[in-house]
């Protein structure tokens, strides 16, 4: 079974905000709601790094764990969705979420926040009527066999979306070809590895990800 994940390759992200625009366009979210955002750390410094972030569809999702209505559920693909009919707008998911993904259309006295909105991995939501589903939750591209539009439209292919195995294989391969010896945890020393060596490592990493040991972990 696939487990859907996003991954943003920080070395490729150029802060073009194309993903943000694509998301807004695909899902036609309410005014003021921006499901995806690009955050640039050390903006203007030599080590400026940008990352596109939205709901990361956590395997052990904190929003699910704290929701008092239990309106969240995970699809068979590991996509975290929520039922807006059940949502009471208490804000707990926002307090718990590591990525600041849940958003509310209002923020008024007496805790009036409206219904929570967040990235659905372009998988729509629990609503049979397609028109209403689109209104409430945005696009359901997954049902059409397509991946989230943000990743599909990423100009540098920094933002990857899809099965965790495939996504991590692609990333590992990139990382090795950049010259990292230890996954992605060190700086690159250019020319330290021969191209042949890189190819061997990339191969090893790629098969690693689909090995039963890693797949389990």
């Amino acid at each position, binding site marked *: 079974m696939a487990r859907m994940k996003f991954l943003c390759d920080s070395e490729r992200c150029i802060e073009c905000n194309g993903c943000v625009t694509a998301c807004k366009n695909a899902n036609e979210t309410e005014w003021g709601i921006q499901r995806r955002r690009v955050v640039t750390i050390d903006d203007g410094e030599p080590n400026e790094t940008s990352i596109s972030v939205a709901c990361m569809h956590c395997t052990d999702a904190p929003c699910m764990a704290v929701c008092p*209505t239990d309106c969240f559920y995970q699809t068979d693909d590991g996509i975290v969705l929520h039922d807006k009919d059940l949502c009471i707008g208490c804000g707990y998911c926002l307090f718990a979420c590591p990525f600041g993904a849940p958003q509310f259309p209002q923020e008024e006295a007496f805790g009036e*926040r409206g219904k929570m909105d967040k990235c659905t991995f372009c998988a729509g939501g629990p609503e049979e009527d397609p028109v209403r589903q689109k209104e409430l939750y945005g696009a359901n591209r997954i049902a059409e066999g397509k991946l989230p539009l943000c990743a599909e439209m990423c100009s540098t292919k920094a933002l990857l979306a899809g099965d965790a195995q495939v996504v991590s294989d692609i990333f590992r391969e990139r990382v090795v070809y950049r010259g990292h010896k230890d996954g992605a945890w060190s700086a*690159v020393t250019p020319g330290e590895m021969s191209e042949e060596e890189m190819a061997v490592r990339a191969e090893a990493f790629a098969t690693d990800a689909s090995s039963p040991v890693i797949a389990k972990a």
Partner: protein
Amino acid sequence: MKTHSTHTGANITGNSSVQYLKVVVASLLTLLCLTLSSPLWADSAAEKVQGNFAGADYWREVSGGTEGYTTSKGREHGQLINVSGETWRQWRNRWVSPGGLMAIGGSFSVLALAYLLLGPMRLDKPRTGRKIERWNPTDRALHWFVALTFLALAFSGILIMYGKHFIPDLFGYSFWKGTIALCKLVHNYIGPIFSVGLIVMLLRWLKNNFFTKTDIIWFLQGGGLIGNKHPSAGFMNGGEKGWYWALVFIGLTVVGSGFVLDFPIFGQVRDTMQWANLIHGGTSLLLFAISLGHIYIGTVGAEGALEGMKTGYVDETWAKQHHDLWYEEVKDQLIDEPLDEKEKPKK
């Protein structure tokens, strides 16, 4: 003029020397440029390679909650990782939630045991039929106003905390959907109303609730549980004063933290809300557990206690037994039974 003549003179006389100078200066400049710039270039190149890839230090920074730049206008959207979110989740789900159940369950068990083993406190002597006014209509109105809003908040709050674990399974999705939506509305709108009532009530009853030496003796005798003699008490006994101060300290904490949660209009960040939520959950569950004791004694636990809050009047025997010092003060205001008829329509 002088400069001009010198210049033209030099031009005429030393054309070759100027060219030589030019070459020297140019080569020196080039050399300077090379020596200065080559390490610079090398540095920025290395920096580019290192910096472009977000290494371990970068991720440490990100997971430490560093804020960056974003075009999103959402609050705290510049922060990539909400570090305290998971801590809050663990505290709420692992400590506050089961802790509250234990406090409420513990309180219930103690009271059930007290009822079964000790039984309700009966009046020692038969009623005389003569009554004293203990709570005037304002006091009673305040008490029941706070009591009813308290119960509404307690039940809606308990369902917000624990409802999802059993209501949907027992009564189905649509019932749960309506219930939890109602609970949130009740909790958020009655909360402020309760707060006002509570504060007015606490201020009104403040003067009766300062601890005295009598109360120490009352507590030492466990309110009459230790030894045979019923301890002395004024208008309020030690236990009642304890409940009063629990309402002051715990109750006002609940009110304060609830205000932070209920009015997210002051730009509260997630961190503030997490703290407010933990404090609100912990203290309100504790207060509810304590309130069970008050409810028990006020209803089935002590004979004659509920009358006071219901009709405003208590029997002479009850007053003498539970509040002897107060009885001594007010015994000249005793009213004979017939007046009880007048109270009846109020019931």
